[in-house]
């Protein structure tokens, strides 16, 4: 079962990859030659079909994994993140059926792809459940919440497209800079995934000892744990490592490792960005802007808003109401302010603020589009940051 699940999972991954390529080629093709317009629809049509294939195979991957483990596979970071990628693609399939904006696929497919790849950075083994997770209400709660998050992610993509359509990137405005930064962040996530998976595929493993015990590094240890002896742990391209240690006040035993990952990600992403930038010879946001030029900005604004209007009630139901019912049923108290719960509330308040800002004059369009874009960061923090950054008691804590 587990092997079957892996095969389905791999198929889904390559479907999303293929869809990304089809959509991007379709769009760039559309703009390059006027006569290739028909071809473009051919490419994007196939992109959509391939996305649907990906969604179906991923559903099968989730189902088979669930049968193997005996529980709904949404209980650790790998399972949860890949489920999120699934809901994003599912939401796209449904929304695109109504709104027919093929260009949206060129944004959503890579986002889903990178999130799925990011999921595979986490340990993939199926582990038995700790007591707090042994409850069916939990499954209902987590899957519904993830669906809400998936739909809300579509509003991020549409908001980004809106900003690209309406911003004059040749002028050096703040919006232009932020847009370029957003594009950079995408490549930062991509480089994180590529370096992590690359070194893992190569079987890189290095034990570094510090005062708080040994740490197993899967990346070259540029930054060691507190108290590690500099330059003695490993060599990377002839450089003796570690170069620095994590400062002692950071307390967490794996602080050095986390720091190290961030440093390597930043370096790798800057290299990747520089290469792409040299090829493009202009800000990358301008390259992407070409894909969306000519799109109706009002339609994109409406689309971004609609995705929130559809996703917000689902999120409310899944992340708050079902969570409260579960907590009441399982723990006897509907709310206990643990970090995950509180961040679900923060995310909800964020989108509540969005909806009310939209009631105000002058807030439609650019300002709310930015809020939709930033909403993605909030969701990302809810799903990843809380687990990795906040040392919570929550059951998802470090898988």
């Amino acid at each position, binding site marked *: 079962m587990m092997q079957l699940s892996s095969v389905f999972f791999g198929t889904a991954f390559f479907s999303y990859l293929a869809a990304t390529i089809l959509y991007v080629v379709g769009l760039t093709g559309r703009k390059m030659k006027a006569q290739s317009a028909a071809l473009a629809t051919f490419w994007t049509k196939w992109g959509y079909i391939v996305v649907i294939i990906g969604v179906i195979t991923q559903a099968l991957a989730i189902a088979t994994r669930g049968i193997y483990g005996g529980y709904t596979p949404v209980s650790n970071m790998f399972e949860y993140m890949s489920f999120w990628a699934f809901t994003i693609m599912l939401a796209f399939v449904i929304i695109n059926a*109504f*709104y027919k904006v093929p260009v949206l696929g060129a944004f959503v497919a890579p986002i889903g792809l990178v999130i799925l790849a990011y999921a595979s950075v986490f340990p993939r083994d199926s*582990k*038995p459940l*700790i*007591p*707090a997770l*042994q*409850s069916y209400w939990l499954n209902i709660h987590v899957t519904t919440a993830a669906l809400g998050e998936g739909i809300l992610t579509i509003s991020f993509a549409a908001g980004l497209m809106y900003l690209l359509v309406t911003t004059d990137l040749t002028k050096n405005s703040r919006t232009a800079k932020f847009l370029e930064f957003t594009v950079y962040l995408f490549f930062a996530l991509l480089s994180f995934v590529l370096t992590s998976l690359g070194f893992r595929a190569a079987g890189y493993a290095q034990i570094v000892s510090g005062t708080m015990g040994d740490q197993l590094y899967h990346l070259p240890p540029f930054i060691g744990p507190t108290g590690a002896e500099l330059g003695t742990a490993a060599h990377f391209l002839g450089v003796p490592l570690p170069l620095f240690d994590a400062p002692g*006040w950071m*307390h967490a035993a794996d602080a050095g490792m986390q720091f190290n990952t961030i440093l390597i990600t930043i370096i790798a992403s800057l290299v990747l960005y520089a290469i792409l930038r040299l090829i493009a010879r202009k800000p990358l946001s301008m390259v992407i802007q070409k894909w969306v030029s000519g799109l109706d900005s*009002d339609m994109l604004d*409406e689309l971004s808003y*609609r995705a929130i*209007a*559809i996703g*917000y*009630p689902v999120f*409310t*139901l899944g992340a*708050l*109401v079902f969570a*409260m*019912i579960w907590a*009441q049923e*399982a*723990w*006897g*108290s*509907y709310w*206990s*302010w*643990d*970090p995950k719960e*509180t*961040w679900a*509330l*923060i995310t909800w*308040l*964020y989108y*509540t*603020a969005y909806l*009310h*800002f939209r*009631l*105000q004059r002058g807030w*439609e369009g650019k300002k709310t589009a930015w809020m939709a874009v930033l909403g993605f960061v909030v969701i990302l923090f809810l799903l990843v940051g*809380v687990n990795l950054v*906040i*040392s*919570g*008691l929550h059951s998802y804590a470090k898988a």
Partner: protein
Amino acid sequence: MNNRKKTFFDAIWEFFASVKVGITIIVLLAIGSILGTIYPQTNAIPSPNPDFYYNDTYGKLGDLYYRMGLADTFNSWWYLTLVLMLFISLIIVSIDRGVPLYKSLKRQPVARKLIAIQADRLYTKAEGGDAEAKLEALAQQLKKRRYKVRREDGALLAEKGRLARFGAYVIHLGLIITILGVFSRLIPGWYYTDMIWLKEGETKPVGNLGFSVQNNGFTLEFYDQAQTRAKKFETDAVIYENGQATAKKHLAVNDYLTYKHTNIYQNSYDPQPMFKTGTIELLDTRNNNKSLGTFVIDFNNPQREYKVGDYTVTMANYFPDVKVDPDKGVFTNSRDPYNPGIQFDITGPDQMEPARQWMIPLAGPFVKQMLGKDYRFDLQFKDVDLFHMTGLKIERDLGWWPIVFPGLVIALCGLVLAFYFQHRRVWARLEEGVLHIGANTNKHWIGITGELNKVLVPLGIEPVSQKRKEEPQQS
């Protein structure tokens, strides 16, 4: 005087009815909540001693966090004030806008001014042909699509989903009820929460609710040898009331006991074990570590004196949770035997003058060195029995079922109304042989555009298309 009072009241009213103020409250609540997630809150720490826990676990910053009251953010006066302001704002804004909206929708005229129709975001007109017949056909078609159609001569108003306009108010109402339910905790007797830490066999009263809980045994199982992943942890609990055992249950996570509307559930356990009993062997270091006999200590309730063969071991000092500090000397952190440190005086046939020496089983090399180790005797554990304290959460919340839960259901209904239904209106007006058709929705323009065109095109009327947003709209 009266007049001034009224303006003051008006000012308050206007303040809370303002959406800007409402958004500010929501944003402040979000920011406040973020502060409350930096470190675990006191109700969630796996330790009965917050005074030490934050400093020990998170260092100086953690201690500062605790001292600033942020470790209890969600019960702080400022957080509760924000919730209260949200509550007031929700009530006032709903009255301030809901009532006029209701009235205006009830009183809307069928015949709308022509310029208003022409200014609609969806607008089309039909010239020539039999306009009258077209109007009639339009009315029939819209009725088929479940519009409520009203007619006056030469004019038409078709409407559906009016309730959707009240979705937002239903949400707000649901939230008002939910917040009321949360604040019902202030009613005496409605709410009680506590975390009770019980050692094995221990009984503690539950607040002043009139009963006590006893821990009749705690079991802890792990999935793995290294004991990193708990499989289950369970407590045999017994409830006593007036000296009688009145209820008992094997408590497990996700399986709680309800007693007198109070839920008692397995929440956690103290990961740091405590010493229960230990069998200690007395060894003579002057004589090749010869065994002189053994004795048993109950760390929760130690005796003063133990007879070991011909020797007498007297407890001079007992520190159940010993800390040895170069500056502060030796002291105890708590009264719980996490890390017992005992100072013994030992006498015997060949030791008339009491030999005073320490026994700290968990002491590191540093402490050992500091206390000196050239002792006449050696005390070795032969056997030790450790246990974990069980953490039971006591929760009585009478407001959940009758108030909070219905509030949430109402809010969800409101969300469905507000976001999955739309209020659609179509106006038509016949003027000088021309049929003018305008349409409006509160949401989802693509939906109504499609629907309308399905009606208009078969009637031979030019389909509508959305005008740009910049153009004036009428509500």
